């Protein structure tokens, strides 16, 4: 019962914050609302028994990623874009169709028999790390995936640096561009 109350509170916050993202004009406000939404989602993770995931959500998403977002928004001052309308014709076309689609999916979802399993495992640090790194019991699958994700992050970082640096206006790059 208490869980439901908490859940409703967190869900209302999350949905409200998401709506704020939709309706805010300045990207910074949007980013802040997004952070709120993410934090409340992290709360829900904890509520249903995946505390480790909740923590990761706060640290990585609400912390690192959104930090990056706000940083970029503030770097590009022009992002406070006055000329661009918030919504246009496409928006008013898209909103009903997405809502209809969501309603349909919800309609279908409601009919599915779903219930929490009492024997489910709490996603603690211990369980997670054992699953990820104890290859003896779970096989090498997750571990490999983990390593690959690491490489992916590294390469994404390199790519980001390269992309952002490329257009800082170095003469050499200009020349190479002309060649092509």
């Amino acid at each position, binding site marked *: 019962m208490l869980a439901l109350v908490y859940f409703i509170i967190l869900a209302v916050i999350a949905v409200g914050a998401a709506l704020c993202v939709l309706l805010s004009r300045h990207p910074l406000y949007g980013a802040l609302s997004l952070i709120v939404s993410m934090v409340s989602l992290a709360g829900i993770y904890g509520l249903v028994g995946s505390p480790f995931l909740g923590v990761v959500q706060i640290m990585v998403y609400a912390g690192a990623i959104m930090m990056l977002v706000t940083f970029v928004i503030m770097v590009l001052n022009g992002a406070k874009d006055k000329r661009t309308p918030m919504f246009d014709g496409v928006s008013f076309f898209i909103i009903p*169709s997405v809502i*209809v689609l969501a309603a349909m999916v919800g309609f*279908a979802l409601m009919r599915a028999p779903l219930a929490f399993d009492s024997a489910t495992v709490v996603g603690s640090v211990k369980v997670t790390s054992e699953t990820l790194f104890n290859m003896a019991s779970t096989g090498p699958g997750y571990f490999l995936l983990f390593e690959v994700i690491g490489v992916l992050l590294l390469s994404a970082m390199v790519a980001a640096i390269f992309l952002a640096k490329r257009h800082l206006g170095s003469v050499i790059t200009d020349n190479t561009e002309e060649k092509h």
Partner: protein
Amino acid sequence: MTYLPLWFIPLFPLIGTILLGTIAVVSSGAKKGPSEGLVGTLAVLFPALSFAVVAILACTMPEAGLRETLCNWIDIPLFRADIGFLFDGLSRIMLLFVTGIGSLIAMYSIGYMHGDRGFARFFAYINLFLFSMIVLVLADSLLLTFLGWEGVGLCSYLLIGFWNQDIKNCKAANKAFIVNRVGDVGFLLGMLTLVTIGGSSILNYDGLAAFIKMIFGANMVSEVVLPLSLAGALIFIGCTGKSAQIPLLTWLPDAMAGPTPVSALIHAATMVTSGVYLLARLGLMFSMLDQVLLVITFVGMFTALWAAIAGLLQNDIKKVLAYSTISQLGYMFMAAGVCAFDASIFHVFTHAFFKAALFLGAGAVIHALAGEQDMRRMGGLINKTPVTACVMIFAFLAIVGFPGFAGFWSKDLILERLFVSGPIVGPLVYVVGLATAVITAVYMGRLIIMTFFGKYRGSKESEEHIHEAPAVMLFPMVILAFGAIFSGYLWADSIGITFFRDSMASVVGEAQALYAASNAVSHVNPVIFAALGTVAALGGMFIAWKVFGHARIIGVKGASTVPEGSAASWTFLWDYIHCAFIAGVNILAWFCDVVVEKVLQAIQWTLAAIVEILGDGASVLQVRKVRLQLAFSIAGVALLVMLVVFSGGLV
């Protein structure tokens, strides 16, 4: 007793064709043509060799004829044909004069074609022609005859259009081939009818004869006479095409565009008589087809009369001879129409000599006058070219039927046979034939008078150059003149010589007996016909002398040799009728080209355009805005899901 193989006969001209053709093609690139001596020798040698073979075979031939099957030609289900040769009384006569006159004319051509750039090519064509003609005559089946039949048509086309730089010659050649083709299709369909009646073996002449005899034996004439009549009529169409009878006669006058020896060889002596040959060859079949025979008689009659009248109006010396040829062929067809095949072949035989002589003489005249063909510019040539004049006058006497000359015997024979053939038709046809003989004498007399008598009407400069033809040309002419005088004595009925009839009897005797059996023949003294014929010839000559002998011949206005005024329409009436057909085809073609094709194209392109427009319409949806595309796709998914959900699919 062993005989020379029959295939030797066509082989020699074929070798000649290949050799000369190779020479012609190889030397075509060179500046100077090949040696005329070599080419001329080759060109005369092969026909002469062929003639020698024919002569040897003719002397040693057994009564029943020689038969030889070379190999199989077509062998498919339903149809089988062999390549085989048949040498009997009929083909003997035909081959003798085809190869004989062919060799003579080849010799004459050496002189006539002297200095022409296509010397070798000309003789290659001549040899090819002789080959085809020999195959036509020697074949033992209709199908192989058809090979020669189209072959001679082809050679005629090639030779008429020999001087192909002039588009007029080409047009004449095309006309000849196409008109002939119409006849050939008739022939082809006739053959098909025959095959349908009695299987492929019936195309063989012996097979056909056996078939007909069997019909009589089984007494089933009435059952097959209708399809046989159809076949006969269709084959007769083929004959009218090749022999220039009504309605397919228009090509022969135009064919005079070719070199004169060609006219002599192909369009007077040999090829055009192949229709008569075919009728005689199929005599047994035709003898039982009364309706077809009647048609043949009347076609021959009208053609003879028509062409004779047309001949009166011509100014071109060769055209006069062309119409005269058509007219004489009409005689032959009349004779064939009353089943007098031996008489008709006899006329073919004599006609070959005197008409070839006339043409060669005309060629010599044209040669002497450096290409002038208009009789209105000739005259008085008897002093300048005496030999030519003599040859032509002898031939003239032969063609008008002056007593003692070849034409006299053969023409009178035909007229006699016509008269006795039946109660009403016979005399009618006889009278027309006699009248035609008078007209023949008139226009031939006109030709001789205008050419050789009176004063020279050409320009003064040209008079200087008039010269007698060289010996190589005169020699064949003289021989032919002898033929024109004496060839008639092979069958001089009035004085009791019937050698020719006897030699033909083995082939056509049966047919004629059959016909005679069904048509009562009353015997009339042949001397009466001879006398009447003589009167007709003399009368015609007299008229000609009266009318043209002293008349001042109007000087030529233009260079045209076309008959003037209404004469043109009178002469070429059949041309107009043909033109109507051609116009019909052209209108049909125009309709196809301009209407049907355009409509089809329009439909095709309309369809294409519709597809294109639809495509363009669809590409409007292919928006450039990524967001809109996404929106569309989501809306689409939503729609699909709604569809699924509300149609109860998921539940």
